[in-house]
């Protein structure tokens, strides 16, 4: 009995020793690869045989085809480069990328989500490299508008978003706005809304006519970010929201945000949005809108191809202009940033690759596949109908500074905090004031720790 006990203590002692030697000191210490700071070059052909491992999340139908075409074209141009493409959904990429990047053999090129939870953490951990040197070679700064470059930039230590180091470039543009059913609106005798007041009037008219004003499904939790983001942007305006999300100032308990929360709860009480939305899937709500059973639907421009296919000319796209502003303000930005990892053995090839799949030529490939490129070629005239609505809106909000970032960029845990709080808000589990206090608690904890 005694001997048994002793051997067990032995095993535990050995295990503890092994575990401690494995962890050495604080977890994460010394795991970041050293950044190579050698001279950079545009030379790809001279790099010898290279296999470039690329992790992307371009899984939507049109976009994945565009990506395949671009990869094939790059390999055709540089036969010495073999591209090993690893593609997965956004959610899967988000969960696996951290592990892949912190491993010994990270991919060369990855698509990193913007904001503090992902890109900020990668920069802080020294896992992706600053592209300022390659920007000097490829001149991305003059190709992209300032507002888009800012979103992909961080301070060198990853603590301040929109800092002076560029960490990635993006292929596609994104604006979250309000799709509307033209037939229903003309039946109600109202114009496409361009302000929150207009929208509420149209929704009241729609409700009175027995038509569901806005299809909304939030079982996946993420659509809540878009609903709240659009309303908050239309009330608070671009400066206030930008300052909040970047951590530059303001509080979530500010009047405008409380007002936005009140508005949404009000919509829910009046039956303007789908009843029991927390149990309705995003796709079911979209299907409801596409089938002509609802007047409005809030989602991003990435659904343009699908909605246009389902509704043809019946669908329109609009954004809201805040009171006292001249141009619309709404949530949006650009697709995930293409970044080069610190551990990549061929940063020159990796940079040439991301330039190749993001440049003006690549933009045309995306348009061909019914997707909105981050920079619309100057000589391109969009097809009339939904594409014109979407392209024009994107052009005007990016040039007027009306783009406010996705709210979940605010803190590493804000996605969970915000999405579950919106579910509570629409189900009237919390008051608008309490809703904003939940957000502020998460926010002040993070901003205070920086």
């Amino acid at each position, binding site marked *: 009995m005694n001997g048994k006990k002793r051997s067990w203590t032995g095993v535990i002692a050995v295990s503890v020793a092994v575990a*401690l030697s494995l962890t050495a000191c604080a977890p994460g210490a010394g795991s970041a690869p050293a950044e190579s700071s050698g001279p950079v070059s545009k030379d790809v052909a001279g790099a010898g045989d290279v296999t470039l491992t690329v992790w992307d999340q371009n899984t939507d139908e049109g976009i994945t085809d565009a990506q395949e075409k671009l990869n094939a074209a790059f390999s055709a141009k540089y036969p010495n480069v073999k591209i090993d493409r690893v593609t997965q959904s956004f959610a899967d990429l988000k969960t696996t990328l951290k592990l892949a990047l912190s491993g010994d053999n990270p991919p060369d090129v990855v698509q990193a989500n913007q904001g503090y939870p992902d890109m900020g953490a990668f920069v802080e951990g020294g896992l992706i490299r600053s592209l300022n040197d390659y920007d000097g070679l490829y001149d991305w700064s003059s190709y992209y508008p300032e507002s888009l470059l800012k979103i992909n930039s961080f301070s060198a230590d990853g603590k301040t978003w929109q800092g002076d180091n560029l960490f990635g470039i993006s292929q596609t543009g994104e604006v979250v706005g309000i799709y509307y059913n033209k037939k229903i609106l003309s039946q109600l005798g109202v114009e496409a809304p361009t302000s929150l007041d207009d929208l509420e009037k149209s929704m009241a008219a729609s409700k009175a006519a027995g038509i569901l004003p806005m299809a909304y499904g939030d079982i996946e939790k993420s659509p809540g970010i878009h609903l709240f983001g659009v309303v908050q942007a239309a009330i608070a305006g671009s400066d206030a929201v930008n300052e909040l999300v970047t951590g530059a100032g303001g509080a979530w308990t500010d009047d405008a945000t409380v007002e936005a929360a009140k508005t949404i709860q009000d919509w829910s009480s009046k039956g303007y949005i789908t009843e029991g939305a927390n149990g309705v899937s995003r796709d079911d709500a979209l299907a409801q809108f596409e089938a002509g059973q609802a007047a409005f639907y809030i989602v991003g421009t990435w659904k343009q191809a699908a909605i246009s296919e389902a509704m043809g000319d019946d669908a329109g796209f609009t954004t809201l202009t805040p009171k006292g502003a001249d141009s619309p303000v709404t949530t949006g930005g650009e697709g995930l940033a293409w970044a080069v990892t610190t551990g990549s053995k061929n940063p020159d090839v990796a940079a040439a690759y991301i330039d190749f799949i993001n440049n003006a030529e690549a933009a045309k490939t995306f348009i061909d596949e019914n997707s909105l490129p981050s920079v619309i070629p100057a000589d391109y005239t969009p097809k009339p109908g939904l594409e014109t609505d979407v392209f024009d809106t994107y052009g005007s909000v990016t040039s007027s500074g009306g783009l406010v970032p996705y709210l979940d960029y605010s803190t*590493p845990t804000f996605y969970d905090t915000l999405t579950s709080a919106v579910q509570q808000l629409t189900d009237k589990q919390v008051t608008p004031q309490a809703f904003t206090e939940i957000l502020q608690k998460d926010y002040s904890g993070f901003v205070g720790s920086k």
Partner: protein
Amino acid sequence: MTVTTRLRSGETRTTGAAPSRTRRRRIASLKAFLYVAPALAFSLIFLIVPTLQTAWYSLYDWNGLSVATWAGVQNYIDIVQDEQLRDSFLHVGVLVVFYSFLPIAIALLLTMVISRAHALRGMSFFRTVLFLPQVIASVVIATTWLSIYSPNGLLNTLLRAIGLDSLTHVWLGDFNTALVSVGFVGTWLNVGLCLVLFLSGVGNVQPELFEAARLDGASGLQEFFGITLPALRGQITVALTLTVVSSLKTFDLVYITTRGGPGNSTSVPAFEAYNRAFNSGQVGSAASVAVVLTIGILLITALIGRLQPKDTE
């Protein structure tokens, strides 16, 4: 004289043999150790070391990428203080009722009925049907129930068909019904397992016992409490262990049906641990939840083990 020499020689033999025998024993135990070494190394590398590492991480504030900062027991204090984490442990307590207590009660009731009707026709068919949920992949089960619970799903359609429109609900989207709805899937899942266990237990009871009870004019209830229930003590313990552990570990069902929503009304510790470790970059907090969950499961399993009748051991 001879006796003493023999004794003496015997003594010398023993004293002389003593070290060699212990050496032999040592070699034998070393050999035995070699036999278990591969298995031990395996569990050391893949179970014990990661477990200890998790416990180590739980003492840090770490996003999984950068250098961690020492947090002491703060992550554990948060489990009590952070409403979201505390609630997740409360939710799992509710799930235990649905995953374990209810199925066992229902299965006992069914056992009572079925064991009375010995030669029930098509018994093996019913047993298969009731056990089927255990065989189907949990992802399939969760997806199926997601559809059953949807606003225009089977459940609501059924309620409308029989004129109970007022009872229709968005089951998984309503703060009041989501957790119960998830729990009910567990009940459905585990009844079959418990029933198959209990039926096999009843099969082991001498038929003469039932016969004697019936000859003495015992009612069905008396028969159940007098014979069946005591005979099933071992099976009930096993069922309790299996179902309670499965309820505490619940992840897949919540991950697929609600992702912890609406709000946090269906979040459970296993889901919180996953979400914090892989999505929101709170590895330390995730590790502390995992540690508390593991200790909780071990404790509860040990307690249930005490119910096990000693004679069957």
